């Protein structure tokens, strides 16, 4: 009856096997075993696209200098289509099939949270270049022995909230005498702790929170949201957006909402944001860990320029962190003298690395945010940047600021 079945099934299987064998044969051969790092990222998304590129760049730099103890660093990349399921599959493939030693994964918190148990199950160190949810580090803290393989290579939401508040205090409260704010954030895992952080620190710096609006990341029409905010008459909108970015910004401008926006806006960190919004971005203030014009550390500018030369645009925020993370993993392997997972975890915990966004150290087992980036002066504080005339200009902290606040004409900064 089904005499066609078996040849066809066998056919696809053998093709698959053949293709896999071919793939292995084609992978560049090195004298010593390479250190393999899997990179799982969102190839089609603004923030995600820089991740594999930056990692590749770091690996090439390390290899150009002779590798780590004679071992080359090899990057294996996977597109996860922004989906947790695809990511899980990619993670399994990376560990089981491609035998990677560590994984750099995703800027989406939900994806990282889905991968975290797999890092434990498959005992493979994983580090995220861009996710922010506090849950990631909390899981490590609560069940250290199981979840110690996960590292949070980007500021936690709580730290991001602190960074935003610190900047708002100097720029808005001290600088512009602002007194009130409305929080506007998308409904996602990473904004929950962010909002809690905002609610906590904004009143402390002197900004009264008048309203708090959370909206679905599927939202396309922001008119009602802006109108509602405007009705509350705040001095500033504090943002927490990542999945959306272009649309609220453009509508903010089209509707000439007379209130400045400041906060987290992941898409604004990307250098193409100005073009994508037809320059509606002018005036947007966003928190970043880096900027194309900001020498946070001596490594920042060379990396940004090198990246632009190589890929045609400046990296997204996750590009900076991914670049550093490859170095950090390589450094940890060197110190551990092995790619054994547990030894790498021990070594990573002792990381003290000056990267492109500051000095990287991880919180310890007893700290609240175990394996999270340490936040603070001398370590990482983050920056506040503003889109001005189609360019990203750093405005905070003073030490690195290249410009002062500048708003489009429809913004009324009254308490000047």
């Amino acid at each position, binding site marked *: 009856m089904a005499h066609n079945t078996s040849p066809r099934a066998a056919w696809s299987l053998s093709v698959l096997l053949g293709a896999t064998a071919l793939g292995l044969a084609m992978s560049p051969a090195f004298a010593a075993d390479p250190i393999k790092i899997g990179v799982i990222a969102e190839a089609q998304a603004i923030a995600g696209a820089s991740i594999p590129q930056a990692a590749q760049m770091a690996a090439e730099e390390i290899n150009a200098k002779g590798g780590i103890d004679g071992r080359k660093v090899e990057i294996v990349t996977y597109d996860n289509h922004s989906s947790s399921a695809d990511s899980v599959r990619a993670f399994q493939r990376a560990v089981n099939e491609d035998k990677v030693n560590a994984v750099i994964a995703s800027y989406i918190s939900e994806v990282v949270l889905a991968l975290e148990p797999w890092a434990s199950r498959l005992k493979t160190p994983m580090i995220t270049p861009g996710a922010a949810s506090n849950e990631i580090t909390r899981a490590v803290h609560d069940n250290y022995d199981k979840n110690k393989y996960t590292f949070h290579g980007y500021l936690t939401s709580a730290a991001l909230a602190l960074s935003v508040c610190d900047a708002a205090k100097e720029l808005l409260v001290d600088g512009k005498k602002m007194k009130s704010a409305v929080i506007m954030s998308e409904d996602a895992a990473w904004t929950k702790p962010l909002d809690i952080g905002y609610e906590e620190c904004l009143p402390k710096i002197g900004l009264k929170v008048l309203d708090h609006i959370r909206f679905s990341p599927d939202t*396309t029409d922001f008119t009602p949201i802006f109108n509602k905010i405007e009705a509350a008459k705040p001095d500033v909108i504090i943002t927490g957006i990542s999945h959306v970015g272009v649309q609220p910004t453009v509508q903010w401008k089209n509707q*000439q909402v007379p209130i400045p926006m400041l906060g987290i806006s992941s898409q604004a960190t990307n250098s193409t944001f100005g073009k994508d919004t037809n320059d509606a971005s002018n005036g947007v203030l966003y928190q970043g860990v880096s900027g194309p014009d900001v020498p946070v550390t001596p490594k920042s500018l060379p990396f940004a320029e090198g990246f632009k030369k190589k890929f045609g645009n400046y990296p997204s925020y996750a590009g900076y962190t991914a670049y550093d993370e490859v170095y950090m993993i390589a450094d940890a392997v060197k110190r551990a003298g092995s790619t054994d997972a547990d030894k790498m975890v021990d070594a990573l915990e002792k990381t003290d690395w000056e990267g492109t966004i500051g000095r990287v150290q991880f919180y310890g087992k007893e700290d609240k945010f175990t394996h999270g980036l340490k936040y603070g002066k001398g370590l990482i504080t983050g920056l506040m940047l503003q889109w001005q005339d189609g360019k990203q200009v750093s405005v905070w902290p003073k030490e690195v600021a290249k410009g002062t606040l500048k708003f489009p004409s429809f913004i009324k900064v009254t308490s000047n």
Partner: protein
Amino acid sequence: MLGLQILIDGFAISALYALGATGFTLIFGVSGVLNLSHGAIMVLAAVAAWAAASVFHLDSYSGALVGIVIAALCSIATYFAVVQPIQRSNKIPNEEKEIFVLTATLLWGIMIQELIAYFFTNNAKTVLPIVEGVVNIVGVRTPKNEIFTAVVCCLVIGLLWFLVNRTRTGKVVLAASMNPRGVTILGFELTNIYIIVWAIYGVLAGIAGVLLGMFLGVSSYSVGPLTASAFSIVVLGGLGSVSGSLIAAFVVGYLETFTAYMISPAYRTIPALLLLVIVMYIRPQGLLGRR
């Protein structure tokens, strides 16, 4: 004040929904096809308009025109590459053609979506608005672009009405939607009528897409939701009924705006969907649908 605000904002979004759904329902009415690549064609128009302006530095009018033309071409291609082969296939039983058309247009839509994502990433794109700035309507600050959107939508729908009801070609199209065999025996080639209808549909979807790109912005992620919203509106209004779709578009548009203002933006789409379910149980042919 808030009431007026809802009235104004709701109108623009409803008019845009109406324009998007009109073409969708027209195609169904005339050729019995539920084109599930609808959202993809709209997004394609917006992205083409964006690319024309941003990448090739055309002015916003030419950009919009490029978007509309590309949508029309893509729509005609949809008919020839996907719909016609199924309608003419003698291997597919007639009673299963419907599901084949649905599945095939969906796949076609996914292909367009993936190509857009491949060449232009899935970042949201906003088309450079033709008019900028805001006006104050009785205390409600309204972007001129929003008014422009509403006006263009109404004009285009009016024009369509005129085309269908007042021109000879339109009459034939209308007749074909009631009785395809009837127009054949009167000596009109159905294929030609279908091409005309798909072209009109493409222009409508193109205009809707470009306006959406100016008004709210689109990304390749919008493909699914756009198809779903056009689909819901058309089902609510009654399959194949243009006036039903118009009413449904305004019902959905205002219901969403009202929910977003009065309850929470997060629940925006829920009441409209619930209404849809209720209507489907009580009156499965939709508000103005024919059984």
